[in-house]
């Protein structure tokens, strides 16, 4: 018998602002944080939000993670100190690429000024596990701590790893999330070179006119706690992480398996892990990247899993409002999904208007949709898929 795990705190920094509330409120209102073809966190001022030393010793992806984690822990009521022993608190934070901004700037230093001028902070800033280490250090989390690296599924894998850690008693709480800041010349050029990004700079998931993803940056963080202990200390359970499923396509380096088989298996595993049936699903927070291939394969996967009900379940993509946050996407989208369940409202796929042949689900056009349910907590799936064929799906339930 595994233990039940609830979310007690949520945090986010996204192109819609600093905070989980601005993310959900503005997305639900149909707003889009993408400007000039990029999802930049324009309101994010690391030196104002962190102290100077911490900001200077962190790549931007780590800075974003630190601010999102602090918000989540504050909401969880950890502001006055952790409610669990430090050794019983873990930290898992995913990223797709890590500190690529540091890699690029230090490579310039190496080429222009030689090896002796390369910063001693180069490695600690660029390493992909820096965000998890920095968050653990700042908040004294002394249990298991590491990063997950699985491209655009990294944030969801981090949440799944933290879920298992608490379910199985390896920890009583775990701070989980994802962070990414890859709006750099090399990353932009490399994604454009493989024709993954949108040449028009518009994120239009599931729409017939979609032509690639829009790069975004940000971080999402969640505090996971064992349910009974959380309730005893009077914490508010914001949602339950009921299930997790992760699979691999083993098909192609970047293209999804066209039938969506790997994605469908991950969705089924997540539902079974939660003890739920496809008929229980009230909302799907899609991976929905706005690439021609993903949105078609994901639609196929949803139809495979939900069967006859598929067209009646609202499916929307957070990426329509903030772009693709790569390794942060799964965490930010889980944050948004948890709030959607709490508010019983599915935000829209912003800008969706032209139906593509075969993409015939309810993508929640124009305005947010009330989530109807007769009895029992509302159930949602949050999908994340990454280059490399990684699929990670979370099943969340309203608490």
């Amino acid at each position, binding site marked *: 018998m595994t233990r039940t795990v609830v979310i007690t705190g949520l945090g986010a920094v996204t192109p819609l602002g600093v905070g989980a509330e601005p993310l959900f409120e503005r997305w639900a209102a149909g707003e889009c944080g993408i400007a000039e073809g990029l999802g930049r966190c324009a309101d994010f001022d690391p030196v104002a939000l962190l*102290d*100077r*030393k*911490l900001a*200077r*010793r962190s790549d931007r992806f780590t800075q974003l993670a630190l601010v999102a984690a602090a918000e989540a822990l504050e909401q969880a009521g950890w502001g006055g100190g952790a409610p669990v022993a430090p050794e019983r608190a873990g930290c898992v934070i995913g990223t797709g690429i890590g500190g690529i901004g540091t890699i690029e700037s230090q490579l310039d230093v190496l080429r222009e000024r030689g090896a*002796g*001028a390369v*910063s*001693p*902070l180069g490695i*600690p800033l660029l390493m992909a596990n820096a965000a998890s280490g920095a968050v653990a250090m700042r908040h004294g989390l002394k249990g298991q701590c590491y990063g997950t690296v699985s491209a655009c599924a990294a944030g969801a894998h981090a949440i799944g790893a933290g879920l298992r850690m608490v379910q199985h008693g390896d920890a009583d709480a775990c701070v989980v999330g994802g962070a990414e800041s890859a709006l750099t010349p090399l990353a932009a050029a490399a994604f454009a070179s493989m024709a993954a990004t949108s040449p028009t700079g518009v994120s239009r998931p599931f729409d017939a006119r979609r032509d690639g993803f829009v790069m975004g940056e940000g971080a999402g963080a969640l505090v996971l706690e064992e349910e009974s202990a959380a309730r005893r200390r009077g914490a508010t359970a914001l949602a339950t992480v009921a299930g997790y499923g992760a699979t691999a396509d083993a098909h192609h380096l970047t293209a999804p398996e066209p039938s969506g088989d790997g994605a469908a298996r991950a969705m089924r595993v997540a539902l079974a892990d939660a003890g739920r049936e496809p008929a229980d699903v009230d909302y799907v927070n899609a991976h929905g990247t706005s690439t021609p291939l993903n949105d078609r394969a994901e639609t196929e996967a949803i139809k495979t899993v939900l069967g006859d009900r598929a067209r009646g379940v609202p499916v929307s993509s957070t990426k329509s409002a903030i772009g693709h946050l790569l390794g942060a996407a799964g965490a930010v989208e889980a944050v948004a999904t948890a709030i959607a369940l709490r508010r019983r409202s599915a935000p829209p796929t912003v800008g969706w208007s032209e139906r593509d042949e075969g993409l015939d689900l309810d993508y929640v056009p124009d305005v947010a949709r009330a989530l109807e349910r007769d009895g029992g907590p509302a159930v949602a799936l949050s999908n994340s898929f990454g280059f490399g064929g990684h699929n990670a799906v979370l099943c969340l339930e309203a608490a």
Partner: protein
Amino acid sequence: MPTATREDVSQRLVEALVDFGADPGEISDDATFEALDVDSLDLVELAQIVEDVYGVELSTADMKRMSTVGDAVDVVVERSG
């Protein structure tokens, strides 16, 4: 390259320490790097700055002699002479 007077070196090092995040109010000749929360990574950066500005390459032995801000100023002035 500027002359490494004690006053000039002191000013450059204080600027660097503030940039590293040390509290300006705590910085004095007698302040230890440990008390200022300036660690070995910061000291490597400090050495890089000294090399850039004064052309002085600090050795590991030099670095070991530096436990306070005043020590570091003395070492840089001495080595640049």
